[in-house]
């Protein structure tokens, strides 16, 4: 057992912090609120130049190949600054899946582009369905490829991406494809989400995908989508870790200065204990996230660890966000103060790719299966 953070990883984190801090003061962040896609292309360029987009991309494709754990460290730092950098959909859901399941040609074509700053995103969710291994979106084989029809929702960067990775069901067989959002039959409709950003619904009507843009089919496609689900959930947990830690620290500082009844409100136990509870929650989230990330990093079975981490993620997000807002009073909800943005981002992640209630239900069914089989 070894909890050591490797030295190179610590320097990655430091470098990421420096760059992200330069791009995420209140005024800069404001420019990406609301009616805009939350993407700072200058920041993305800076991250690419520093080699941070290629943490989980092999060296021949222009990456540094430090692995998945290193990538989650970057996700944590992005969470901490709430910077408009779509590391999870691009680097984890899309690039991570391509790296592990794509053909050599696709890897050659896209991984080096992504490490250099190109945008390939992923569309993993549908209405009422957060499991990309069982999509309602359908495909049928055509001459030279597949025709895909269906609807994906809340897709980040859909209108800026060169390709969108998504799954479809082809007569009981899963396929994973890269869709060109400019292809005929693709309709993008903007969706404003809780995180106060524009995402897109993607409607696909018989969209032709050439064979060379198929990432995986059959059992490999199922493995790919299971990997994508677990890796994405874990990366969301890591982002949440950064977000929650920052929310807590903002709250610790604010309550230490804000005076009421003639003294700093942090000197009331009723206040300091709420913040201490956030500290305990965040410590738990950190540990279960590290466990899930290190298992995925080593290519070990991680499903249960990931489910547990995402349950903690949802619960901790909810509690820390609420405690932080409450301890701030009105300031916490004021859009001129940074806290609100963290609360909204946290809520978005909490609702993405499986929430606490749903995953607790799933885990409970697993437990029942395990013990019924043994009894």
């Amino acid at each position, binding site marked *: *057992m*070894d*909890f*050591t*953070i*490797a030295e190179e990883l610590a320097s990655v984190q430091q470098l990421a912090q420096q760059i992200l801090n330069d791009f995420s003061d209140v005024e800069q962040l404001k420019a990406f609120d609301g009616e805009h896609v939350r993407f700072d292309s200058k920041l993305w360029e800076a991250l690419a130049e520093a080699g941070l987009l290629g943490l989980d991309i092999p060296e021949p494709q222009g990456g540094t190949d430090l692995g998945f*754990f290193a990538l989650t460290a970057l996700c944590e730092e992005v969470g901490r600054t709430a910077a408009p950098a779509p590391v999870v959909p691009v680097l984890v859901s899309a690039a991570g899946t391509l790296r592990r399941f794509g053909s050599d040609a696709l890897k050659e074509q896209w991984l080096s582009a992504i490490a250099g700053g190109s945008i390939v995103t992923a569309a993993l969710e549908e209405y009422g369905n957060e499991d990309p291994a069982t999509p309602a979106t359908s495909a049928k084989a055509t001459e030279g490829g597949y025709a895909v029809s269906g609807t994906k929702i809340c897709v980040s960067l859909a209108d800026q991406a060169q390709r969108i990775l998504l799954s479809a069901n082809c007569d009981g067989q899963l396929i994973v494809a890269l869709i060109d959002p400019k292809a005929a039959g693709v309709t993008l409709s903007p969706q404003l989400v809780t995180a106060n950003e524009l995402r897109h619904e993607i409607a696909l009507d018989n969209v032709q995908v050439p064979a060379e843009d198929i990432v995986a089919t059959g059992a490999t496609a199922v493995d790919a989508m299971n990997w994508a689900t677990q890796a994405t959930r874990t990366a969301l947990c890591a982002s949440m870790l950064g977000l929650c830690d920052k929310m*807590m*620290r903002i709250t*610790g500082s604010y*309550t*230490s200065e804000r005076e009421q009844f003639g003294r*700093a409100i*942090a*000197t*009331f*136990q009723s206040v*300091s*204990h709420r*913040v*201490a*509870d956030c*500290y*305990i929650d965040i*410590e*738990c989230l950190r*540990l*279960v996230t*590290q*466990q899930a*990330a*290190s298992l995925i*990093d*080593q290519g070990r079975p991680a499903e249960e*660890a990931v489910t*547990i981490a995402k*349950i*903690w993620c949802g619960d901790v997000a909810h509690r820390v966000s609420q405690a932080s807002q409450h301890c701030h009073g009105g300031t916490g909800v004021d859009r001129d103060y940074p806290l609100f943005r963290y609360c909204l981002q946290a809520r978005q992640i909490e609702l993405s790719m499986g929430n606490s209630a749903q995953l*607790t*239900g799933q*885990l*409970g*069914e697993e*437990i*029942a299966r*395990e*013990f*019924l089989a*043994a*009894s």
Partner: protein
Amino acid sequence: MNIELTAAQKALQTEVREYMKTVMTPELLEEMKDDDLKEGGGPEFRKQYARMGADGWIGLSWPKDLGGKELSHIEQYIFTDEVIRSGFAYPFLTTEAVAPVLAKNANDEVREEVVGGVKRGEVTIAIGYSEPNAGTDLASLRTKAERDGDDWVINGQKMWTSLANYADYVWLAARTDPDPDKKHKGLTMFLVPTDTPGYSCTPVRTLGARTNATYYEDVRISDKYRVGEINGGWKLITSQLNVERLSLFTHGQVHSLYESVAEWAAETKAPSGGKVIEQSWVQHNLARVKVGLEALKIMCWNQAWMMDQGPLDMAKASTAKVYGSEFFVELYRLLLECMGGAGSIAAHSPGAILQGKLEFRWRVGSILTFGGGTNEVQRDIIAMAGLWMPRTR
């Protein structure tokens, strides 16, 4: 980063688990049915404790010159975890918390007598910190020790002196300076042999286990039983608290309760047909337990690992105390709910599920949220040491 036990650590875990099965003899299980011997102290307990000593299991983390194996805190944790999981009333505060402090600070004669005795599994020590009017606020304790020639004369009363009914010594904090500039500066540590005249002990019955009040009426002990410097007791008290905490919230014991309840639920018919575990509300509770257990396990491993790297951060130690103790109570609740009304049937009554183990655990569970330093004070520590927030009042 690799949050898993190494092959050698897993082997140690298996070895201890198998060994402890031989310690938990039918005679011992019978003896532990007596409420006063549940937490140890009976002849079969003494026999098995001494056997653990003879077999070299006591003091794994102690230095080699004390007969220890100098194992890391992680390995020490694996050992403690398995011992507690087995249900043996191993006096881990004696072996892991107090004995190492004595080894460092007691004089040679006492070190041989007490630390040697612990190593052999012959000596147990109760902890005498709390008093009727001083719980977590140890700086305010009033039991006093006065110098008289080569001796000390001790007068006062201690509360919650668990295990004192069979312990050989009380590790006693007493006031030696009645008027220090800071209250915690006037304390000195002593070992009081429990056969010293003037010492007495009466039971205190709690919701679950027996604990004790202990009385010190002109108790005269030699200066050799003073441990550490006069008025230097505070340092000795605080230096053992981290280790103590890590023994209090081990993962193995509660994990085995989870497994037992899940097994019971998978075998037991539900009124609506099918098995208890097929009901969604039971699955929900089991899943909630599992989610909390996983965090507890990694937190314990993480803290043991951090203790191997250097002194444990105060805020992190308090985090484990609060999380562990409050999760235990929640876990008992969630698991007992799975059993329905029959969850309230106590051991030895007909219909008791899992020999009433959980029913009993729930009754003792709340002790840990205030024992070992109340959780409110732990939260004060977290806010100050972990978040740099100003001291509360």
